[in-house]
């Protein structure tokens, strides 16, 4: 994109002059280098939670000021643009493994963090990658209304597919990631044997449930609304979105069995001038005492399991990495999705239209 061949000096000078007229000097940032980093996170409930758990304590410990901004739910396009154009407006970015795979290949956009599992005792080893450090874990789960089914609602995806035993309105996510795995588990595939996904079998299974899906939801906020208002009786939902409805008084329950978990964590744009401070910050976030703090505000699990020593047991039972919950779930294979998303989602969209 930023092709050096297309930019002749004359035109560029012209552009600069024009820009100067319009923008006034935009050389605000380099002046304060070293004392400040900008961290882009998911916003909403994340901002205050991470401020308390990580940003403020890091400021106190190092004297580096943390400015936090919000990026869109899919920050990869912006991440890529930042690196391509060397616009270093973000120094550390909250991403998910799904993003990381797409940012690592075919071209690498990630600064190596240089962290080894030995340096972060207690952190789940699968959360430490060359260019990524997972700090919180979320899960894709089944949730149901207890005013409809009592305490004995559906306990597995096979139950979700069983419309005779559990009549009621159902909702699924409008995209392929999640519903494909769920359909396979409903059809009897062991969670440990899911990947690579058997697509033909998955779509055959989806065919069976299609006409019982009342709503295909498109955003996390919408899924909370569906559960909270009772628009549907059971649905596939991200655990924290279900917890938000439950915390707000909705009679509902999260089923951990056959859940799929994934994580959020820190990556640094390749070539960031503040990479060293960024790495220091990432390392700071492995501290179990720090991780325990965000669980008060976000229903996500800490990646450092030692954090559970400091979390109220009642709260701990609601978090995805709580040992008894974690052992019922498996990790979503984001590398497989990185390689196959395009192909699978084309087929999924086609299937949706053909019903």
């Amino acid at each position, binding site marked *: 994109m930023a092709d050096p061949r297309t930019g002749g000096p004359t035109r560029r000078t012209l552009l600069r002059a024009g820009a100067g007229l319009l923008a006034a000097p935009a050389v605000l940032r380099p002046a304060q280098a070293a004392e400040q980093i900008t961290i882009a996170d998911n916003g909403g409930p994340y901002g205050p939670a991470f401020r308390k758990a990580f940003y403020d304590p890091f400021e106190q410990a190092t004297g580096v000021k943390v400015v936090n901004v919000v990026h*869109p739910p899919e920050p990869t396009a912006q991440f890529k643009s930042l690196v391509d*154009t060397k616009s270093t407006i973000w120094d550390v970015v909250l991403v998910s493994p799904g993003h990381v795979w797409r940012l690592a290949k075919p071209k690498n956009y990630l600064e190596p963090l240089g962290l080894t599992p030995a340096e972060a005792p207690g952190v789940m080893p699968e959360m430490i990658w060359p260019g990524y450090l997972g700090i919180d874990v979320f899960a894709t789960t089944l949730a149901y209304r207890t005013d409809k089914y009592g305490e004995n609602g559906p306990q597995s995806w096979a139950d979700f597919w069983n419309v005779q035993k559990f009549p009621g309105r159902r909702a699924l996510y409008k995209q392929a990631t999640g519903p494909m795995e769920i359909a396979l588990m409903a059809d009897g595939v062991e969670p440990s044997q899911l990947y690579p996904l058997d697509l033909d079998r998955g779509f055959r299974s989806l065919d069976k449930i299609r006409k019982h899906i009342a709503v295909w939801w498109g955003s996390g906020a919408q899924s909370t609304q569906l559960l909270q208002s009772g628009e549907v009786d059971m649905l596939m939902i991200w655990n924290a979105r279900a917890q938000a409805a439950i915390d707000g008084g909705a009679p509902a329950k999260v089923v951990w069995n056959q859940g799929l978990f994934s994580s959020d964590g820190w990556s640094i744009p390749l070539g960031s001038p503040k990479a060293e401070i960024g790495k220091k910050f990432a390392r700071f976030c492995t501290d179990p005492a720090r991780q325990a703090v965000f669980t008060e505000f976000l229903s996500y699990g800490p990646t450092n399991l030692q954090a559970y020593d400091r979390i109220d047991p009642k709260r701990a039972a609601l978090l995805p990495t709580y040992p008894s919950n974690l052992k019922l779930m498996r990790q979503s294979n984001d590398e497989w999705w990185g390689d196959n998303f395009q192909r699978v989602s084309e087929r999924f969209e086609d299937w949706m*239209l053909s019903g």
Partner: protein
Amino acid sequence: MSGARLSLAAPGLLPAIRRVRLVNPLWLAVPGLLFLALFFLYPVARLLLLSLQDADTGALSVASYSRLFSRNIYVRVLQNTFTIAAQTTGLCLLLAYPVAYWLTSMPARRRQSLLLLVLLPFWTSALVKAFAWIVLLARTGVVARLLADVTGSAEPVEMLYGRGAVLMGMVHALLPLAVMTMLPVMTQIDQQYLRAAQTLGAPRAQAFWRVFFQLSMPGVAAAGLLVFIASLGFFITPTLLGGPKDPMLGPLIITQIQTMLNWGFAGALAAMLIVTALVTCAVYDRVFGLSTVSGGTGRQREGRSWLATLGMAGLALVANLHGMLSERLARLLGGHRFNWIVPAIACTVVAFMVLPILVIFPMGFTSSRFLEFPPPGYSLEWMATYFGSEMWITATLRSFGVAFATALATTALAGLAALGVARGQGRGGGLIFGMFLAPMVVPHIVCAIALFYLFAQMSLVATDAGLIIGHTVMAMPVVFVTILAILKNYDWRLDQAAATLGASRSRALRRVTLPLIKGGLAAAFLFAFIWSFEELTVAIFIGGGLKTTLPKAMWDDMLLQVNPTLAAVSVVVVLIVVSLFAVAQRLRRE
């Protein structure tokens, strides 16, 4: 159009005018064209070229396009997008026309106040409106309960998550645009023509269909085009209110860019959308006469005479039917004329437009953590959250500032260009028209990313100036079309009269033209303001999270959780805007 339409100048006058006019007015479009060339055409073309390159080697390749046509899903989604856009346009025109007509028939001051009502939904973010509909029309919602009480059926009606809901949401979002585009053209129609027609013996139905309706067609055509093209790129409403069978191309392009990082393929999809829009423009031109809006006096009717004849015959038929029907009914009902029907329809439409806003108001004062209607109780918690947050206040102020600057810049650039096109000669007019309309056709996300790369070279990323430039590009089409529609309908003989009486051209412009078209200019200014005030994609990319506007702040807040702060924000914004309008009206009166 017919003889009732005023031709530009009597044939004998034309050479005289040409002599006076040394410079072709088309040159007035140059500043706007340069602006669009630099901030739109160049960056977008650079991005679209990626669709013709191999991602790894950069060599020329048509792989993206062969993929597009080898999977039937993309063509199907395109058909779907096209159908939804066409349905939305049809409904919008049908509903907006009586409203605009009704507004035209009332005194100016009352019209201004009512316009405020029509514009209300425009001031609320598309996301908040979508959630208002979800709350209202849910299976457990208030409308369903009312219906159940009325019909006595136990099984609630399914109103959401299907084509009906998508169309309702989109029509609701675009109705203000349609009304506002039609209105200036309608108010400019000289009521004397109608009186003249009636004096010559035409019954009311004939006068309406053959004179007023016909003269209002440029406004209807402009509204139809704008609504259609705007609906091609919709993504929030179909995503939230649609079922599995309502996918549109906009979300697919966004997925390719944001999730897949496959910008070459996104470019190919965007190119498909752009081609669709261009073909539509061409067909529209052929059938409905876009040229009545786009200018180029010489080519107004060529080759379409049979269509024009057909259209006139159709109108005559409608007029006769209408006349006959109303006569019969009047005789049956003892002279009752149904004069209340148009106001009744218009009021119903306006009520539909205002409804979600009425729902949002109480939700801003709810005691619940969720958007619920009616709220279980009331509290000031969410208002306190808004006013206690520096982030919200800064974002609100920035949005107003950026929108004001955008509106000034857009009205100036597009206004000059529209004047040039309306008064200029030669084939350039059509080209300029296409260029000014183009930003509307290109999906916002494509524009935003293209601009990001350009702005990165110019140090404009994360600056207010960057936001203003981006918004000016986006707002250009609506503003241009609005002003042009006004100018095309403007009777230029008034200027000639002024010139005959000794006024210089600038004086005629200042004392005659501007005062007469100021309603249209105000509408255009307002459009640009609203466009910027509502804009999200550029705000995300160019603002970089560091320069946060109100829609961006709302978007950030509702990604995972819709909380009533958003309703509180909407309430505050609506109140601010309403009081600004009230003050402006008071000032104008004094």
